[in-house]
């Protein structure tokens, strides 16, 4: 009977090893109380069953990689690296290039970040530094409620509420004021890259703001007090004492939001217009890696077609994993190993 699993933070002194003196002591204390000898078998069986469950998690990841790699072999052999550099997507002639989808995924996600980052940091700063304590709980609960709404419901709302608003008011205004940049030109359909970016922004705000909030709360109180003691106003205290100390964690939160935006499927599919084109204007329709999977996977008739789609899935998988791993490292560096709240 070993004595592991002390409920203390990670990265502390190591637990006593199985069979070490400390563990033996517990055993020695307990054994004389028992009537006769207790079988070790159930204990060992339970321990291994739990280890198996842990192993299953790792196996799942292996399984995902295996499925994606095997499934995309055909397309990989047919196109190689050119797959990611070529913008033709033509199921009729069996020619596939992922460039328009990568472009759509990156542009819509970056657009979402541009909108979501200032808003989420503002909300996080307001909740942790400015608002009265009574309001704090309510506000953080309501922003997190946004995270509980299913993606398809966001899409539904976007189609019938957001897109008309963009078409009638926002796009004409943008075209008039910023049309000269070329980013806001062309007919205002409502549906398109801009709508996708806005709905993605609404969806990732809860993630970015809740993790930013967590990061801000671990900034030591004396940093704030020191800034105030030097005569800083509240904003100066927040800028110098809080935000500067939490920089790495906030960047981590942003990248975590990016990871979510890259893989988001339904809401984007419903409003982006689903056309594999690379256009400069944000009013134009686009297509993302996730939404081409959603739309075409069940209709993919040829083997090569299916394989090309799976290769897009594989690429999406690797990008999100790299992005997420990076983000977690950055959040960890601030919260010192207390794991970031899971993305539920």
């Amino acid at each position, binding site marked *: 009977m070993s004595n592991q699993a002390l409920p203390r933070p*990670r990265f502390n002194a190591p637990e006593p090893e199985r069979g070490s003196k400390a563990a033996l002591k517990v055993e020695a204390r307990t054994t004389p109380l028992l009537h006769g000898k207790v079988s070790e078998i159930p204990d060992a069986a339970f321990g291994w069953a739990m280890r198996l469950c*842990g192993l299953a998690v790792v196996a799942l990841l292996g399984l995902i990689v295996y499925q994606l790699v095997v499934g995309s072999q055909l397309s990989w052999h047919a196109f190689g690296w050119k797959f990611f550099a070529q913008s033709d997507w033509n199921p009729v002639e069996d020619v596939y290039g992922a460039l328009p989808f990568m472009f759509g995924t990156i542009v819509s996600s970056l657009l979402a970040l541009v909108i979501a980052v200032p808003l989420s940091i503002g909300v996080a700063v307001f909740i942790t530094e400015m608002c009265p304590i009574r309001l704090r709980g309510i506000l953080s609960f309501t922003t997190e409620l946004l995270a509980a709404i299913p*993606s398809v419901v966001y899409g539904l709302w976007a189609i019938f509420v957001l897109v008309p608003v963009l078409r009638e008011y926002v796009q004409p205004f943008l075209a008039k004021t910023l049309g000269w940049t070329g980013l806001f030109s062309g007919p205002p359909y409502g549906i398109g890259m801009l709508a996708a970016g806005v709905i993605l922004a609404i969806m990732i705000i809860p993630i970015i703001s809740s993790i930013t909030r967590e990061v801000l709360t671990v900034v030591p109180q004396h940093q704030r007090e020191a800034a105030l003691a030097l005569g800083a106003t509240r904003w100066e205290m927040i800028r110098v004492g809080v935000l500067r100390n939490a920089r790495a964690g906030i960047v981590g939160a942003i990248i975590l939001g990016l990871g979510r935006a890259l893989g988001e499927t339904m809401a984007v599919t419903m409003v982006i217009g689903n056309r594999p084109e690379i256009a400069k204007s944000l009013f134009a329709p686009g297509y993302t890696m996730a939404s081409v999977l959603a739309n075409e996977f069940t209709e993919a008739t040829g083997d090569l077609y299916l394989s090309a789609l799976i290769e897009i*899935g594989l690429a*999406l998988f690797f990008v999100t994993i790299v992005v997420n791993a990076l983000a977690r490292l950055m959040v960890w560096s601030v919260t010192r190993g207390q794991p970031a709240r899971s993305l539920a």
Partner: protein
Amino acid sequence: MPPVSLRRRVMDHAMTGAAVLTVLLVLLPLFAIFAYLVYKGIGSINIAFLTQTPKPVGEPGGGMANAIVGSMVILGIASLLGVPLGIGAGIFLSEYGRNRYGDIVRFVSDVLNGVPSIVIGIVAYGLVVMRQKHFSALAGGVALAIMMIPTIARTTEQMLLLVPQAIREAAYGLGVSRWRTTLSITLRTATSGVITGVMLAFARVAGETAPLLFTAFGNQFWNWKSDQPTAALSLQIFTYAISPFDEWHRQAWAGALVLIILIVGAVAAVRIAVRHGTLSGA
């Protein structure tokens, strides 16, 4: 104390104003979404919507009864597969995994948490649909289970770690074996926290659509077999929302409202059961 210059005071107030503005801007869509859901949805929910299957295009009426049941079946399968495995992995992490192996599992489950749901759908397609040669509720359940496991594992771990070591030692001291201690003492003490984690994972996958597109596939009719294409509420909302028919749009709103009520209802029911019922832990 020297007076604060006007510029700094203005800046201070401006930034406070900006922060308040961001809060309002973020709350605006939240209220808009809920208001529209209730406003558009409530008029369309009636007995027919809850008891009938979809009517062909052009005919008014019909409902999503098969989709509501289908969603429950898929979620049931997902929970059956995902909850025990997830809790098991959580027990491993907190009771056996305070070492390098645990760190690997911990990292992998965080990584799994970030995998896009549509990619999980591809995997379930390859695992189940390709073998069975047809879409099924089982495939949908497998996809959702894969999504539940990492969340449940990590929250279970965190909850078990909150249980004081002294309680475990007390059990060992009474001669209780380790597996009994883990299940009847540690896990039981953390029950309400573990169940909250499970419900979080459940709520997260309950509205998922992307992984069901090519696993459960959807169905316009009743289906009682777990190896046939099965309707799901979220799929039905998607199909109806992108259709060109007003009647279907109306039903999509109703479906969305029902979906949210079901999710919130399930979470609330379990919360109440944990607090008052037989499930209540220490």
